[in-house]
């Protein structure tokens, strides 16, 4: 049983990695287990300067999911390089840096700054951020903006770039094609769906930011559908799949839909040991369903006509 996966810049011992924003910079969960077990680690978003983030409450619980509006709190890309990433050097696990920004220039700056670091293996380009110059339109919902930021970041970066798609769009394959056309080395999907919860006592949204991103098993069918659609449209693009993964069966479902590797987000909060537990379960699940390797399962949920 082989769990290894090879993707641009990423030579993974297994397809399981914690998702950005759900694992900090690794220190806390390293108290629970040896991070060497992980396929890779996607760290929290980096922006050009330090960001405070949104007011609290920042999270809410929903049926089979949660809402979050952390608001990209981070110490800024420089501090991440100097204060956070070095801790992860002790592990033989590739690190993927998640980058965010309010303007194309900010994205480019973050990408360029990250070239100075030897501690990362790839970049995950988070385009679910509002573009302040374009009046708050999200980079991730406009194919033109998405193309532009991908193109510029590709130019700025020495690392492979995985573009993280927003599911809050009418047509996910249009977005996927736009960023792949602009040079993305791979895709990461999906980010959270915009949602809201209202506190009945307070008569106001629970989350101070009003809306938040919905994650967790509630959104898994949407993630599977979008990955399936993109895999149909782009048969070769590397895809890191995510959205509601809770166990090894879920991982296999993502592989069958067309993901090459997966990220686990919200589940870490419920069970800090979830990633190593899934990694341990995975070989048994793969062989129960007749697969001899992870790579064999990728895209096998697509009906071959004829």
């Amino acid at each position, binding site marked *: 049983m082989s769990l290894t996966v090879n993707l641009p810049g990423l030579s993974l011992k297994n397809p399981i990695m914690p998702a950005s924003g759900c694992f900090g910079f690794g220190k*806390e969960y390293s*108290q629970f287990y040896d991070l060497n077990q992980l396929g890779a680690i996607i760290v929290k978003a980096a922006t050009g300067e330090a960001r405070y983030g949104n007011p609290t409450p920042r999270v809410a619980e929903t049926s089979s999911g949660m809402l979050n509006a952390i608001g990209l709190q981070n110490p800024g890309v420089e501090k991440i390089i100097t204060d956070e990433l070095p801790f992860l050097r002790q592990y033989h696990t590739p690190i993927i840096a998640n980058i965010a920004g309010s303007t194309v220039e900010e994205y480019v700056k973050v990408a360029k700054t990250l070239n100075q670091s030897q501690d990362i293996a790839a970049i995950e380009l988070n385009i679910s951020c509002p573009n302040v110059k374009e009046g708050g339109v999200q980079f991730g919902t406009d194919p033109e903006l998405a193309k532009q930021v991908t193109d510029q970041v590709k130019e700025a970066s020495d690392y492979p770039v995985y573009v993280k798609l927003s599911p809050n769009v009418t047509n996910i394959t249009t977005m996927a094609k736009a960023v792949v056309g602009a040079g993305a080395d791979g895709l990461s999907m999906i980010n959270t769906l915009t949602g809201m919860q209202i506190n009945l006592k307070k008569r106001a949204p629970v989350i101070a930011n009003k809306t938040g991103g919905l994650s967790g098993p509630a959104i898994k069918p949407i993630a599977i559908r979008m990955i399936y659609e993109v895999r149909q449209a782009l048969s070769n693009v590397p895809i890191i799949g995510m959205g509601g993964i809770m166990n090894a069966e879920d991982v296999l479902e993502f592989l069958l839909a067309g993901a090459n590797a997966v990220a686990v987000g919200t589940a870490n909060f419920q069970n800090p040991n979830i990633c190593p537990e899934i990694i341990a379960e995975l070989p048994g699940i793969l062989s129960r369903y007749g697969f001899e390797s992870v790579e064999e399962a990728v895209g096998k949920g697509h009906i071959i006509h004829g």
Partner: protein
Amino acid sequence: MITKQSLEILSHIQIAEETFEVVLRSALSKELKPGQFVHIALPGHMLRRPVSIANVDPEAETFTMIFKIFGEGTRHLSKYQAGDKLDVILPCGTHYPIENLKLEHALLVGGGIGVPPLYYLGKQLKDKGVKVTSVLGFQSASQVFYEEKFQQLGDTFIATNDGSYGQKGFVTDIISELGSPFDYYFSCGPTPMLKAVTDQLADKKGYISLEERMGCGVGTCYACVVPLKADPTKNKKICKDGPVFLANEVSLA
């Protein structure tokens, strides 16, 4: 060492209106410090619930927590029974750093479900020979708990909002009457109470313990922050840098 454990419930009893005391067995009990909390998973709920450590019996390797029914999660927790297992992350957060403090007389100020962590703190203070005075606020008589236990630690004053027990009014009313013969205060309770107490005792040294909606409970998700008073563009994580803070360290909304 923070860890996730499946702990057996040794006892689960109701001690006041919608208020339950739960005793759990864990070999980690002896390492638990006052002010720390545990983070509890409940089947069918995506997020864990943070609950403070209210008491520890190091020899029996048990600890106690006290919670009130607030919403769905705590209602679910109220249905557990002795013998059931609970999935718990522990120990979480910082503690009242009494090992480093020079003090002779401590004032404990608790409100509602902020009362529990102060009991374990008070016990440790008393063991160190510190004089303990407690001022506890509750909504009404039916919600009062642990009064006798606090009395065993020292003078204990109760305020209820509706006057159905103890003195009518707020903990701050009692504090005004007490004067200030203490060197440190330790407070835990709803934010408006903490704000009132820290304002009232602005010239005193003190520690407060905060609450916020949490995701991870261990410091990875940035859900539970509170701005620093000195620089409100920066913040601290309540789950990891707190829940215990120096009274003037953070900015209460």
